[in-house]
Protein backbone atom coordinates (compact mmCIF):
# COMPACT_ATOMS: atom_id res chain seq x y z
CA UNK A 1 0.00 0.00 0.00
CA UNK A 2 1.47 3.34 -1.02
CA UNK A 3 1.33 6.62 0.84
CA UNK A 4 -2.08 8.37 0.86
CA UNK A 5 -2.44 12.08 0.10
CA UNK A 6 -5.47 14.30 0.68
CA UNK A 7 -6.05 16.74 -2.15
CA UNK A 8 -8.88 19.29 -2.06
CA UNK A 9 -10.60 20.43 -5.25
CA UNK A 10 -11.89 23.43 -3.46
CA UNK A 11 -14.61 25.95 -3.67
CA UNK A 12 -12.36 28.09 -5.87
CA UNK A 13 -10.65 26.10 -8.59
CA UNK A 14 -9.53 26.96 -12.06
CA UNK A 15 -11.69 24.36 -13.80
CA UNK A 16 -14.82 24.47 -11.67
CA UNK A 17 -17.91 26.34 -12.79
CA UNK A 18 -19.83 25.67 -9.60
CA UNK A 19 -18.92 26.33 -5.94
CA UNK A 20 -18.50 22.82 -4.58
CA UNK A 21 -15.74 21.21 -2.60
CA UNK A 22 -14.38 17.66 -2.80
CA UNK A 23 -11.59 16.35 -0.64
CA UNK A 24 -9.96 13.38 -2.40
CA UNK A 25 -7.83 10.79 -0.67
CA UNK A 26 -5.50 9.47 -3.35
CA UNK A 27 -2.97 6.67 -3.51
CA UNK A 28 -0.59 6.58 -6.48
CA UNK A 29 -2.88 8.94 -8.47
CA UNK A 30 -5.96 6.74 -7.97
CA UNK A 31 -8.80 8.12 -5.88
CA UNK A 32 -9.81 5.90 -2.97
CA UNK A 33 -12.12 8.11 -0.91
CA UNK A 34 -14.09 11.37 -1.26
CA UNK A 35 -15.78 13.83 1.10
CA UNK A 36 -18.17 16.49 -0.23
CA UNK A 37 -19.27 19.92 0.98
CA UNK A 38 -21.94 21.58 -1.12
CA UNK A 39 -23.86 24.30 0.72
CA UNK A 40 -21.76 27.32 -0.22
CA UNK A 41 -24.51 29.43 -1.81
CA UNK A 42 -27.38 28.92 0.63
CA UNK A 43 -29.64 31.97 0.32
CA UNK A 44 -32.72 31.04 2.37
CA UNK A 45 -35.19 31.09 -0.54
CA UNK A 46 -37.67 28.68 1.06
CA UNK A 47 -37.94 30.92 4.11
CA UNK A 48 -38.35 34.08 2.01
CA UNK A 49 -41.14 32.52 -0.06
CA UNK A 50 -43.13 31.78 3.10
CA UNK A 51 -42.73 35.10 4.88
CA UNK A 52 -41.97 37.99 2.60
CA UNK A 53 -43.68 37.38 -0.75
CA UNK A 54 -47.28 36.83 -1.77
CA UNK A 55 -48.06 33.61 -3.58
CA UNK A 56 -48.33 35.20 -7.03
CA UNK A 57 -44.96 36.92 -6.62
CA UNK A 58 -43.22 33.68 -5.58
CA UNK A 59 -42.98 32.50 -9.20
CA UNK A 60 -40.57 35.35 -9.92
CA UNK A 61 -38.52 34.67 -6.78
CA UNK A 62 -38.25 30.99 -7.57
CA UNK A 63 -37.10 31.63 -11.14
CA UNK A 64 -33.97 33.17 -9.67
CA UNK A 65 -32.91 29.99 -7.84
CA UNK A 66 -30.99 28.88 -10.92
CA UNK A 67 -29.78 30.66 -14.02
CA UNK A 68 -29.77 27.66 -16.35
CA UNK A 69 -33.08 25.99 -15.54
CA UNK A 70 -35.07 29.08 -14.64
CA UNK A 71 -38.09 28.05 -16.73
CA UNK A 72 -38.29 24.65 -15.00
CA UNK A 73 -38.57 26.28 -11.59
CA UNK A 74 -41.20 28.85 -12.64
CA UNK A 75 -43.27 26.24 -14.47
CA UNK A 76 -43.15 23.75 -11.58
CA UNK A 77 -44.14 26.44 -9.06
CA UNK A 78 -46.95 27.69 -11.29
CA UNK A 79 -48.26 24.13 -11.61
CA UNK A 80 -48.23 23.52 -7.85
CA UNK A 81 -49.91 26.89 -7.16
CA UNK A 82 -52.56 26.09 -9.79
CA UNK A 83 -53.26 22.84 -7.98
CA UNK A 84 -53.66 24.76 -4.71
CA UNK A 85 -56.14 27.29 -6.16
CA UNK A 86 -57.76 24.59 -8.31
CA UNK A 87 -57.68 26.11 -11.81
CA UNK A 88 -56.85 24.66 -15.23
CA UNK A 89 -54.41 26.23 -17.68
CA UNK A 90 -55.57 26.96 -21.28
CA UNK A 91 -54.07 24.69 -24.03
CA UNK A 92 -52.06 27.41 -25.77
CA UNK A 93 -50.29 28.21 -22.50
CA UNK A 94 -49.36 24.52 -22.07
CA UNK A 95 -47.81 24.36 -25.55
CA UNK A 96 -45.88 27.60 -25.08
CA UNK A 97 -44.51 26.36 -21.75
CA UNK A 98 -43.31 23.17 -23.46
CA UNK A 99 -41.66 25.21 -26.23
CA UNK A 100 -39.58 27.28 -23.83
CA UNK A 101 -38.71 24.24 -21.68
CA UNK A 102 -37.26 22.46 -24.71
CA UNK A 103 -35.34 25.50 -25.96
CA UNK A 104 -33.90 25.84 -22.47
CA UNK A 105 -32.91 22.16 -22.47
CA UNK A 106 -30.96 22.60 -25.72
CA UNK A 107 -28.93 25.54 -24.47
CA UNK A 108 -28.24 23.91 -21.12
CA UNK A 109 -27.00 20.65 -22.70
CA UNK A 110 -24.74 22.60 -25.08
CA UNK A 111 -23.24 24.41 -22.09
CA UNK A 112 -22.52 21.15 -20.27
CA UNK A 113 -20.96 19.56 -23.37
CA UNK A 114 -18.70 22.52 -23.95
CA UNK A 115 -17.56 22.40 -20.33
CA UNK A 116 -16.76 18.68 -20.57
CA UNK A 117 -14.73 19.32 -23.73
CA UNK A 118 -12.81 22.12 -22.07
CA UNK A 119 -11.96 20.00 -19.02
CA UNK A 120 -10.80 17.15 -21.24
CA UNK A 121 -8.31 19.53 -22.81
CA UNK A 122 -10.06 20.11 -26.16
CA UNK A 123 -10.46 23.88 -26.01
CA UNK A 124 -11.29 24.35 -29.69
CA UNK A 125 -14.40 22.20 -29.29
CA UNK A 126 -15.41 24.28 -26.27
CA UNK A 127 -15.33 27.45 -28.39
CA UNK A 128 -17.21 25.82 -31.26
CA UNK A 129 -20.04 24.52 -29.06
CA UNK A 130 -20.40 27.90 -27.35
CA UNK A 131 -20.64 29.57 -30.77
CA UNK A 132 -23.52 27.27 -31.75
CA UNK A 133 -25.20 27.96 -28.41
CA UNK A 134 -25.24 31.72 -29.06
CA UNK A 135 -27.92 31.28 -31.71
CA UNK A 136 -30.25 29.76 -29.11
CA UNK A 137 -29.60 32.51 -26.57
CA UNK A 138 -30.73 35.09 -29.16
CA UNK A 139 -33.76 32.94 -29.94
CA UNK A 140 -34.75 32.80 -26.27
CA UNK A 141 -34.33 36.57 -26.08
CA UNK A 142 -36.77 36.95 -28.98
CA UNK A 143 -39.32 34.60 -27.39
CA UNK A 144 -39.15 35.67 -23.73
CA UNK A 145 -37.69 39.17 -23.77
CA UNK A 146 -34.49 38.36 -21.90
CA UNK A 147 -31.54 36.00 -22.40
CA UNK A 148 -31.28 34.38 -18.98
CA UNK A 149 -34.21 35.24 -16.70
CA UNK A 150 -37.31 34.35 -18.65
CA UNK A 151 -40.15 35.23 -16.18
CA UNK A 152 -42.32 33.42 -18.68
CA UNK A 153 -44.70 31.20 -16.68
CA UNK A 154 -47.03 32.89 -14.18
CA UNK A 155 -49.74 31.43 -11.96
CA UNK A 156 -52.59 30.73 -14.38
CA UNK A 157 -50.74 30.63 -17.70
CA UNK A 158 -47.94 32.42 -19.55
CA UNK A 159 -46.93 36.06 -19.70
CA UNK A 160 -46.47 36.70 -23.45
CA UNK A 161 -47.63 35.37 -26.77
CA UNK A 162 -45.57 34.03 -29.69
CA UNK A 163 -45.38 36.34 -32.71
CA UNK A 164 -45.32 35.03 -36.34
CA UNK A 165 -41.92 36.70 -36.99
CA UNK A 166 -40.47 34.81 -34.04
CA UNK A 167 -41.91 31.52 -35.36
CA UNK A 168 -40.08 32.10 -38.66
CA UNK A 169 -36.88 32.90 -36.79
CA UNK A 170 -37.11 29.64 -34.79
CA UNK A 171 -37.62 27.53 -37.91
CA UNK A 172 -34.73 29.22 -39.74
CA UNK A 173 -32.25 28.73 -36.91
CA UNK A 174 -33.25 25.12 -36.33
CA UNK A 175 -32.63 24.31 -40.00
CA UNK A 176 -29.24 25.94 -39.76
CA UNK A 177 -28.39 24.10 -36.54
CA UNK A 178 -29.26 20.63 -37.85
CA UNK A 179 -26.02 19.97 -39.75
CA UNK A 180 -24.00 21.69 -36.99
CA UNK A 181 -25.45 19.12 -34.55
CA UNK A 182 -24.42 16.26 -36.84
CA UNK A 183 -20.89 17.62 -36.85
CA UNK A 184 -20.85 17.73 -33.02
CA UNK A 185 -22.18 14.16 -32.73
CA UNK A 186 -19.45 13.02 -35.13
CA UNK A 187 -16.68 14.63 -33.08
CA UNK A 188 -17.93 13.48 -29.67
CA UNK A 189 -18.43 9.92 -30.90
CA UNK A 190 -15.36 9.32 -33.05
CA UNK A 191 -12.55 11.61 -31.96
CA UNK A 192 -9.71 9.47 -30.62
CA UNK A 193 -8.08 11.88 -28.15
CA UNK A 194 -11.43 12.77 -26.57
CA UNK A 195 -12.27 9.11 -26.08
CA UNK A 196 -9.01 8.49 -24.23
CA UNK A 197 -10.12 10.95 -21.57
CA UNK A 198 -13.80 10.08 -21.51
CA UNK A 199 -14.20 6.32 -21.91
CA UNK A 200 -14.35 4.43 -18.59
CA UNK A 201 -13.98 7.60 -16.53
CA UNK A 202 -16.45 8.14 -13.69
CA UNK A 203 -18.43 5.01 -14.55
CA UNK A 204 -21.45 3.91 -12.54
CA UNK A 205 -23.36 0.65 -13.03
CA UNK A 206 -27.13 0.23 -13.39
CA UNK A 207 -27.45 -1.48 -9.99
CA UNK A 208 -25.60 1.35 -8.30
CA UNK A 209 -27.87 3.84 -10.05
CA UNK A 210 -30.94 2.06 -8.65
CA UNK A 211 -29.47 1.81 -5.18
CA UNK A 212 -28.45 5.47 -5.02
CA UNK A 213 -31.64 6.93 -6.57
CA UNK A 214 -29.93 9.00 -9.27
CA UNK A 215 -31.88 11.11 -11.75
CA UNK A 216 -31.42 12.79 -15.11
CA UNK A 217 -28.91 12.07 -17.91
CA UNK A 218 -26.62 10.62 -15.21
CA UNK A 219 -29.12 7.76 -14.69
CA UNK A 220 -30.14 7.39 -18.33
CA UNK A 221 -26.53 6.91 -19.42
CA UNK A 222 -26.21 3.99 -16.98
CA UNK A 223 -29.13 2.17 -18.59
CA UNK A 224 -31.96 3.25 -16.28
CA UNK A 225 -34.87 4.46 -18.43
CA UNK A 226 -36.46 7.08 -16.14
CA UNK A 227 -37.68 10.47 -17.29
CA UNK A 228 -40.40 12.53 -15.65
CA UNK A 229 -41.70 13.49 -19.10
CA UNK A 230 -42.55 9.82 -19.54
CA UNK A 231 -44.50 9.73 -16.30
CA UNK A 232 -46.65 12.87 -16.09
CA UNK A 233 -49.17 13.25 -18.88
CA UNK A 234 -51.85 15.20 -17.01
CA UNK A 235 -50.06 18.53 -16.63
CA UNK A 236 -48.17 18.87 -19.92
CA UNK A 237 -48.88 16.62 -22.97
CA UNK A 238 -45.34 15.36 -23.73
CA UNK A 239 -46.22 12.15 -25.60
CA UNK A 240 -48.58 14.10 -27.89
CA UNK A 241 -45.69 16.19 -29.23
CA UNK A 242 -43.39 13.26 -29.91
CA UNK A 243 -41.26 12.73 -26.81
CA UNK A 244 -39.11 9.55 -26.75
CA UNK A 245 -36.67 8.48 -24.07
CA UNK A 246 -32.91 8.24 -24.77
CA UNK A 247 -30.64 5.83 -22.87
CA UNK A 248 -27.03 4.70 -22.94
CA UNK A 249 -25.30 1.59 -21.65
CA UNK A 250 -21.87 2.13 -20.21
CA UNK A 251 -22.54 4.85 -17.63
CA UNK A 252 -19.26 6.72 -18.13
CA UNK A 253 -18.55 10.25 -19.36
CA UNK A 254 -18.63 9.13 -23.03
CA UNK A 255 -22.15 7.69 -22.65
CA UNK A 256 -23.40 10.84 -20.89
CA UNK A 257 -22.15 13.05 -23.74
CA UNK A 258 -23.98 10.94 -26.32
CA UNK A 259 -27.18 10.86 -24.24
CA UNK A 260 -27.17 14.66 -24.08
CA UNK A 261 -26.57 15.02 -27.81
CA UNK A 262 -29.41 12.68 -28.69
CA UNK A 263 -31.69 14.49 -26.25
CA UNK A 264 -30.98 17.68 -28.19
CA UNK A 265 -32.25 15.87 -31.32
CA UNK A 266 -35.45 14.84 -29.51
CA UNK A 267 -35.94 18.41 -28.28
CA UNK A 268 -35.64 19.79 -31.80
CA UNK A 269 -38.35 17.40 -32.98
CA UNK A 270 -40.62 18.40 -30.09
CA UNK A 271 -40.17 22.10 -30.92
CA UNK A 272 -41.17 21.53 -34.54
CA UNK A 273 -44.26 19.57 -33.51
CA UNK A 274 -45.27 22.29 -31.05
CA UNK A 275 -44.95 24.99 -33.71
CA UNK A 276 -46.95 22.95 -36.21
CA UNK A 277 -49.79 22.18 -33.81
CA UNK A 278 -50.09 25.33 -31.64
CA UNK A 279 -53.78 25.68 -30.61
CA UNK A 280 -55.66 28.98 -30.39
CA UNK A 281 -56.94 29.92 -26.94
CA UNK A 282 -56.51 32.45 -24.13
CA UNK A 283 -53.16 32.81 -22.40
CA UNK A 284 -54.14 33.13 -18.71
CA UNK A 285 -56.91 31.80 -16.46
CA UNK A 286 -57.98 34.44 -13.94
CA UNK A 287 -59.02 33.58 -10.41
CA UNK A 288 -59.50 35.31 -7.08
CA UNK A 289 -59.14 32.23 -4.86
CA UNK A 290 -56.47 31.80 -2.18
CA UNK A 291 -54.26 28.67 -1.98
CA UNK A 292 -55.45 25.95 0.37
CA UNK A 293 -54.32 22.36 1.05
CA UNK A 294 -51.19 20.52 -0.06
CA UNK A 295 -49.88 19.68 -3.54
CA UNK A 296 -46.91 18.00 -5.15
CA UNK A 297 -45.44 18.42 -8.66
CA UNK A 298 -42.50 16.85 -10.53
CA UNK A 299 -40.98 18.20 -13.74
CA UNK A 300 -37.96 17.29 -15.90
CA UNK A 301 -35.30 19.99 -15.70
CA UNK A 302 -32.23 19.60 -17.97
CA UNK A 303 -30.35 17.94 -15.11
CA UNK A 304 -33.04 15.58 -13.85
CA UNK A 305 -36.16 15.45 -11.75
CA UNK A 306 -37.25 18.65 -10.02
CA UNK A 307 -39.76 18.26 -7.17
CA UNK A 308 -41.99 20.91 -5.53
CA UNK A 309 -44.20 20.58 -2.44
CA UNK A 310 -46.42 23.47 -1.32
CA UNK A 311 -48.91 23.97 1.48
CA UNK A 312 -51.34 26.87 1.69
CA UNK A 313 -53.43 28.24 4.55
CA UNK A 314 -56.09 30.38 2.81
CA UNK A 315 -54.03 33.59 2.97
CA UNK A 316 -51.92 35.43 0.41
CA UNK A 317 -48.71 33.96 1.86
CA UNK A 318 -47.83 30.27 1.60
CA UNK A 319 -47.34 28.11 4.66
CA UNK A 320 -44.47 25.90 3.41
CA UNK A 321 -42.58 25.48 0.15
CA UNK A 322 -40.07 22.66 -0.38
CA UNK A 323 -37.83 22.50 -3.46
CA UNK A 324 -35.75 19.44 -4.34
CA UNK A 325 -33.21 20.04 -7.07
CA UNK A 326 -31.90 17.26 -9.36
CA UNK A 327 -28.30 17.61 -8.23
CA UNK A 328 -29.46 17.11 -4.62
CA UNK A 329 -30.38 13.51 -5.47
CA UNK A 330 -27.11 12.96 -7.28
CA UNK A 331 -24.71 14.06 -4.54
CA UNK A 332 -24.20 10.62 -2.99
CA UNK A 333 -23.71 9.06 -6.43
CA UNK A 334 -21.21 11.77 -7.33
CA UNK A 335 -19.21 10.93 -4.24
CA UNK A 336 -19.22 7.21 -5.06
CA UNK A 337 -18.54 7.68 -8.76
CA UNK A 338 -15.00 8.92 -8.24
CA UNK A 339 -13.87 5.61 -6.80
CA UNK A 340 -11.01 4.10 -8.81
CA UNK A 341 -10.62 6.96 -11.29
CA UNK A 342 -7.40 8.81 -11.88
CA UNK A 343 -7.00 12.15 -10.17
CA UNK A 344 -6.19 13.85 -13.49
CA UNK A 345 -9.64 13.18 -14.90
CA UNK A 346 -11.45 14.56 -11.84
CA UNK A 347 -12.32 17.92 -13.49
CA UNK A 348 -13.78 16.19 -16.56
CA UNK A 349 -15.83 13.84 -14.37
CA UNK A 350 -17.18 16.72 -12.27
CA UNK A 351 -18.18 18.56 -15.44
CA UNK A 352 -19.94 15.52 -16.84
CA UNK A 353 -22.12 15.18 -13.73
CA UNK A 354 -23.38 18.63 -14.71
CA UNK A 355 -23.86 19.88 -11.15
CA UNK A 356 -25.98 22.95 -10.54
CA UNK A 357 -25.16 24.11 -7.05
CA UNK A 358 -27.47 27.12 -7.02
CA UNK A 359 -30.45 24.77 -7.25
CA UNK A 360 -29.04 22.41 -4.62
CA UNK A 361 -28.19 24.94 -1.94
CA UNK A 362 -31.11 27.26 -2.35
Amino acid at each position, binding site marked *: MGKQYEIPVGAQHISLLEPLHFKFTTENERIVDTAANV*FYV*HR*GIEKACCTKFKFRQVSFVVGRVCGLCSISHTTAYSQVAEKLVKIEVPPRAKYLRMLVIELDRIHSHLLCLSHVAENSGFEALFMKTMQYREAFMELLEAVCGNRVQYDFAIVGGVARDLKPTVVLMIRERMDHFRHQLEELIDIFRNNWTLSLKNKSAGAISRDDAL*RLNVVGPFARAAGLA*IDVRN*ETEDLLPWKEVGFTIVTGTSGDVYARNLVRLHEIEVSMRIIENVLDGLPESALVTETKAFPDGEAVVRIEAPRGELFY*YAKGNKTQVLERLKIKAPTFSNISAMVEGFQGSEYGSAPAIIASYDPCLSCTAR
Partner: protein
Amino acid sequence: MKKVETTVESLKRDIGNFYQPDKHHFIVMNAVDLGEKLEVQWFFSDYDPPYDITTFYTIIEPQEELPSIKEIISSAWVAEAELVDLIDIHIENTGKGFVLEEDSEMAPLRKKK
Protein backbone atom coordinates in the same frame (compact mmCIF):
# COMPACT_ATOMS: atom_id res chain seq x y z
CA MET B 1 -50.72 11.36 -3.99
CA LYS B 2 -51.23 8.63 -1.39
CA LYS B 3 -50.58 9.51 2.27
CA VAL B 4 -49.70 6.69 4.68
CA GLU B 5 -49.43 7.35 8.40
CA THR B 6 -46.54 5.86 10.37
CA THR B 7 -45.03 6.31 13.84
CA VAL B 8 -41.56 6.81 15.24
CA GLU B 9 -41.39 3.20 16.46
CA SER B 10 -42.65 1.56 13.28
CA LEU B 11 -40.87 3.85 10.78
CA LYS B 12 -37.96 1.55 9.91
CA ARG B 13 -40.23 -1.46 9.63
CA ASP B 14 -42.80 0.30 7.42
CA ILE B 15 -40.26 1.77 5.04
CA GLY B 16 -38.19 -1.42 5.03
CA ASN B 17 -41.23 -3.47 4.02
CA PHE B 18 -42.34 -0.95 1.40
CA TYR B 19 -39.12 0.14 -0.36
CA GLN B 20 -37.68 -2.02 -3.16
CA PRO B 21 -34.72 -0.52 -5.06
CA ASP B 22 -35.90 -1.62 -8.50
CA LYS B 23 -39.53 -0.55 -8.00
CA HIS B 24 -39.46 2.66 -5.94
CA HIS B 25 -37.52 5.89 -6.09
CA PHE B 26 -36.84 7.90 -2.91
CA ILE B 27 -37.38 11.56 -3.75
CA VAL B 28 -36.76 13.61 -0.59
CA MET B 29 -37.62 14.09 3.08
CA ASN B 30 -39.50 17.17 4.32
CA ALA B 31 -40.71 18.70 7.58
CA VAL B 32 -43.49 21.25 8.22
CA ASP B 33 -43.78 23.37 11.37
CA LEU B 34 -47.38 23.09 12.58
CA GLY B 35 -46.91 25.40 15.56
CA GLU B 36 -46.77 23.08 18.57
CA LYS B 37 -45.72 19.94 16.67
CA LEU B 38 -43.79 19.00 13.55
CA GLU B 39 -44.99 16.90 10.62
CA VAL B 40 -42.21 14.90 8.92
CA GLN B 41 -42.79 13.45 5.43
CA TRP B 42 -40.94 10.95 3.22
CA PHE B 43 -41.79 11.00 -0.52
CA PHE B 44 -41.46 7.96 -2.82
CA SER B 45 -42.38 7.54 -6.48
CA ASP B 46 -42.80 4.42 -8.68
CA TYR B 47 -40.60 3.39 -11.57
CA ASP B 48 -43.54 1.52 -13.23
CA PRO B 49 -46.97 2.72 -14.33
CA PRO B 50 -49.21 4.27 -12.94
CA TYR B 51 -46.35 6.34 -11.49
CA ASP B 52 -48.00 7.16 -8.14
CA ILE B 53 -46.41 9.23 -5.40
CA THR B 54 -46.56 7.66 -1.90
CA THR B 55 -45.99 9.82 1.18
CA PHE B 56 -45.17 8.42 4.62
CA TYR B 57 -45.84 10.99 7.33
CA THR B 58 -45.75 11.23 11.10
CA ILE B 59 -46.44 14.01 13.59
CA ILE B 60 -43.85 14.35 16.37
CA GLU B 61 -42.97 16.61 19.29
CA PRO B 62 -40.03 18.92 18.55
CA GLN B 63 -37.70 17.11 20.95
CA GLU B 64 -38.37 13.54 19.84
CA GLU B 65 -35.57 11.65 18.10
CA LEU B 66 -36.36 10.01 14.77
CA PRO B 67 -34.64 6.84 13.57
CA SER B 68 -32.48 7.22 10.48
CA ILE B 69 -33.24 5.37 7.23
CA LYS B 70 -29.63 5.40 6.00
CA GLU B 71 -29.33 1.61 6.32
CA ILE B 72 -32.29 1.02 4.04
CA ILE B 73 -31.66 3.86 1.57
CA SER B 74 -27.99 4.79 1.39
CA SER B 75 -28.50 8.09 -0.41
CA ALA B 76 -30.78 9.56 2.30
CA TRP B 77 -27.93 11.06 4.32
CA VAL B 78 -28.07 14.32 2.35
CA ALA B 79 -31.77 14.97 3.03
CA GLU B 80 -31.42 14.10 6.73
CA ALA B 81 -28.36 16.34 7.21
CA GLU B 82 -30.17 19.27 5.58
CA LEU B 83 -33.28 18.98 7.78
CA VAL B 84 -31.28 18.62 11.00
CA ASP B 85 -29.72 22.03 10.36
CA LEU B 86 -32.66 23.91 8.92
CA ILE B 87 -35.59 22.80 11.10
CA ASP B 88 -33.68 21.44 14.12
CA ILE B 89 -35.17 17.95 14.37
CA HIS B 90 -33.18 15.16 15.95
CA ILE B 91 -32.21 12.14 13.85
CA GLU B 92 -29.94 9.41 15.18
CA ASN B 93 -26.33 9.39 13.95
CA THR B 94 -26.70 12.74 12.20
CA GLY B 95 -24.72 15.73 13.38
CA LYS B 96 -25.16 19.43 12.63
CA GLY B 97 -22.91 21.53 10.43
CA PHE B 98 -23.55 20.30 6.89
CA VAL B 99 -25.57 23.35 5.81
CA LEU B 100 -25.09 26.16 8.32
CA GLU B 101 -21.96 27.37 10.07
CA GLU B 102 -21.73 27.62 13.87
CA ASP B 103 -22.17 31.38 14.05
CA SER B 104 -25.31 31.57 11.88
CA GLU B 105 -28.93 31.83 13.00
CA MET B 106 -30.13 28.38 14.08
CA ALA B 107 -33.24 26.60 12.76
CA PRO B 108 -34.35 29.33 10.33
CA LEU B 109 -37.39 27.45 9.02
CA ARG B 110 -39.08 27.26 12.40
CA LYS B 111 -41.81 29.81 13.09
CA LYS B 112 -40.63 32.31 15.66
CA LYS B 113 -43.15 33.23 18.32
